[in-house]
């Protein structure tokens, strides 16, 4: 129930914030999803959806954080192993 994969908003429908919805593609499977809780969501955004409600927009700038963390670890490891001058 708490599992969700990111889906891409293809298009949005409606102006009323309560009933606004979007067509969201999950790897090609398209579902109608409520955007009531993401008033700022727009086409091409990736969103996390639970029980038919989009609840969070994927932050593109943060999407590489995992890899930057690994790079930073490797760099720290390298510093520690560097011989003293």
């Amino acid at each position, binding site marked *: *129930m*708490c*599992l*969700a*994969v*990111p889906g*891409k908003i293809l298009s949005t429908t409606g102006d009323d914030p*309560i009933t606004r919805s979007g067509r969201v593609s*999950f*790897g090609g499977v398209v*579902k109608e999803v*409520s955007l*009531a*809780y*993401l*008033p700022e969501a727009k086409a091409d955004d*990736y969103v*996390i959806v*639970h*029980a*038919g*409600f989009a*609840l*969070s927009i*994927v*932050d*593109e700038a*943060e*999407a590489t*954080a*995992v*890899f930057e*963390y*690994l790079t930073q*670890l*490797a760099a720290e*490891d390298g510093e520690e192993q560097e011989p003293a001058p």
Partner: protein
Amino acid sequence: MKYLDEYRDPDAARRSLDAIHALVTRPWTLMEVCGGQTHAILKFGLDELLPPQVELLHGPGCPVCVTPLEKIDRAIALASRPGVIFCSFGDMLRVPGTDRDLLAVKAAGGDVRVVYSPLDAVKIARDNPARQVVFFAVGFETTAPGNAMAVYRAKAEGLANFSLLVSHVLVPPALEAILASASCRVQGFLAAGHVCAVMGYEEYFPISVRYRVPIVVTGFEPLDILMGIHMCLTQLEEGRAEVENQYTRIVRQEGNRPAQLLVSQVFEVVDRPWRGIGPIPGSGLSLRREYWDFDAERRFDLTAVGLTPEPAECRSGEVLQGLIKPSECAAFGSRCTPEHPLGATMVSSEGACAAYFRHRRQ
């Protein structure tokens, strides 16, 4: 798929594991809160790749598993009533009640319908004005916004034939209950990323301080989980106990404010019993007085549905609290299987017993 496959990269996972092995100097016990994380850990075998000193306990974050037997029996009683259309998320249908499950009600002719969204149940109510439509509103903070919206819209539309059977639960009080227990072995938590997408993680600051426990908000893909474990172990090795966020691409500290607002308008916090664990103060949500007309337990007379004890052989309560692993239960894999489950932890796609049966089978 974008934002999915890259977080399953084997080379990056190997580097992450190497970093964890280089970091650990002592035994540590962590708990991943969410059943979705448990399944990912078992599916990808992450627990077997960690240093032997690092133990992962599997937490209570499976809404299907912790829904009390009494609520399941009430759902079965409601679904069995002539004229009722009973709507539910699919994974509740095979959860054993006292003498049968919702699927058996459906097989016997009951109108039990699986819906993807609670708004589908509202539509069914709209399309069937002569029938009573009951939606089984279960779940953690991730499903509460949708269920709140369903009842909010039903009220706005004056849908007199729609109601909710509510069994909502909240994560932070369960963490406190685990930490306050004398038998608690948890030294650090991987908090459930999607619950935090809704609620943010400000609620965890006082818990982390009070119990001196690191809490790392963590995602669901292998690289997320390994990074969450690394962050949590780093805190433990350095003697820190803080709230950190691994899952920054999805979770903001404040969470989703519009969702929190509607949830708090429709629901109020109540004490709630957890199946296999017992009552936890302030751990559930119930409809506010303004929405009592939409409460199935007030609309229908359910007093005949009594309280029955849990099957003695099922040890799901201990599994849900991280006290035993599923494979330590004598019934596991023999008298208890996904086809013939004794308890909900063997049924649900988020249950720890189901994860062990599917991916480990020992």
